[in-house]
């Protein structure tokens, strides 16, 4: 069991999100950085679809009431076990009664905590993700707070063996960490309404830098930078949006839609972030900058397929390591 001694800024139960319910207006939710989430699960020997804790900027304080395996992937929020700094991107043994804390956010904004067996909460509409706005799903539909008691599901026999076998708190292998950048270059595919924008906007989107504004959250990242505008005011008919849609409201400041985006929107979309670059945005903090670069649809899909192959390779090498646990 995980006893929450402090909730942190926003710590919520998330998985890969809800699919199939957007036509009913139900937002997808799910992790902001799917790559880090999937790796954290794989490292501890979980299915990548299991629920993890998404920890944002100011981490929680958690006491573990029994021995278990954990992994932390994503943004580096200076994790500590009983006061000693611990490493990320590898499997760790959490001993009974030890306490996990976090410190300064060093690089990145969101850290994923995977626990052997996965975070155990009831599924709602096929997912364990917290739908914060509707107050449902995950753990009581909300972020974690002091006093909450979170359970993990049963470990596999292999995970139990791994736990018994290791007296050290750190396993000696790690997954190459993802590099997050101070001012990333985000690749975008031109949006459906790209051609409705005026010439300077069409140019500035790819040449100027943008800054993440304070009004950024799981729903969307609001950006500040050059003012983008349509060639002539056009009233659009609402249609579906996606994770990474870059839409521009009439104030001219683009918004990148993230995990908790609404299902439909009526603002013009100047672009769409390539799926492989979504983690880079999810890990940005307020005040950080970013630049956009064009990518073709074919290239974006190719990169995504390569990323999936990469994950499969990591999975295979983890499985090799797991042989040693037997």
């Amino acid at each position, binding site marked *: 069991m995980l006893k929450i001694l402090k909730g942190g800024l926003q710590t919520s139960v998330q998985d890969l999100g809800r699919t199939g319910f957007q*036509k009913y207006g*139900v937002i997808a939710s799910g992790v902001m950085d799917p790559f880090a989430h999937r790796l954290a699960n794989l490292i501890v020997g979980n299915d990548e679809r299991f629920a993890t804790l998404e920890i944002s900027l100011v981490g929680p304080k958690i006491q573990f009431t029994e021995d278990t395996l954990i992994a932390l992937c994503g943004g580096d929020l200076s994790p500590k076990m009983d006061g000693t700094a611990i490493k990320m991107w590898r499997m760790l043994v959490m001993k009974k009664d030890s306490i996990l804390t976090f410190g300064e956010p060093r690089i990145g904004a969101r850290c994923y905590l995977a626990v052997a067996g996965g975070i155990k909460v009831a599924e709602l509409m096929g997912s364990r993700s917290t739908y914060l706005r509707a107050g449902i799903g995950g753990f009581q539909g909300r972020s974690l707070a002091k006093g909450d008691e979170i359970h993990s599901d049963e470990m596999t026999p292999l995970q139990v063996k791994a736990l018994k076998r290791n007296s050290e708190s750190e396993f000696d292998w790690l997954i190459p960490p993802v590099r997050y950048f101070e001012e990333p270059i985000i690749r975008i595919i031109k949006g459906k309404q790209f051609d409705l924008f005026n010439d300077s906007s069409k140019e500035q989107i790819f040449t100027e830098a943008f800054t993440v504004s304070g009004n950024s959250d799981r729903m969307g990242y609001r950006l500040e930078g050059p003012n983008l505008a349509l060639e002539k005011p056009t009233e659009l*008919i609402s249609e579906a949006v996606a994770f990474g849609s870059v839409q521009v409201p009439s104030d001219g400041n683009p918004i990148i839609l993230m995990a908790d985006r609404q299902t439909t929107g009526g603002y013009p979309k100047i672009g*769409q972030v390539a799926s492989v670059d979504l983690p880079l945005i999810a890990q940005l903090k307020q005040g950080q900058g970013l630049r956009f670069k064009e990518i073709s649809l074919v290239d*974006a899909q190719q990169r*995504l397929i390569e990323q999936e192959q990469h994950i499969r390779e990591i999975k295979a090498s983890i499985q090799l390591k797991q042989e040693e646990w037997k």
Partner: protein
Amino acid sequence: MKASFSPLGDQAIAVELGNKIDEETEKQVRKLSVLLESRQPEWLIEVIPAFTTVSVFYDPCVATYDVVKMEMKELLEQLGEDLPIQSRTIEIPVCYGGEFGPDLEFVAQHNNLTAREVIEIHTSGDYSVHMIGFAPGFPFIGGMSEKIAAPRRDSPRLRIPERTVGIAGNQTGAYPIETPGGWQLIGRTPIRLFRPEDDIPSLLQAGDRIIFKEISERAYYEWEEEQNAENT
């Protein structure tokens, strides 16, 4: 039939079936959505119908954009008139005015009508649900009379209680969950529109016909009480 395709990023395709909100386009949107969901191509993840578009989320590791587009074109050719589309009619009871509908008077004055006339016009419209979006179970309903159209509030309310029925422009709808919003509020329904525990979490679906029916405050509370009892 005429349709244009465009990528919605690298994991979805938007199919546009018309460029204005009308019955014919709406019918095509529904037919395509139903056909896709019954065929379940292996690349399909989910379908989001809207006013004039059907957005289809797919797995690019199974099929690339060009393949999905080609298969969608083939599907479109099969959208004959014979594809049966069932239409449900759903009655939504509304208690108008008072604390449930604080803007009923404003809507009346704005249109030089009495509150009673607004209610009569609102309950006699021929409504259909164009799409569900914005919030879980939130219906965009067409078919409201221009006679009771009203502008959005200058500054949106921070909290609108769930199940409140409102008017914005010539649209009407109801807020399924508590949310901020700028619509003019004319009443409230005791019926839950968002039902997360059900297999289909939204009472309303695109294509449904709607009838608004006036109920008394007493009937409203009885209904609400009954519903709460069922849920505990």
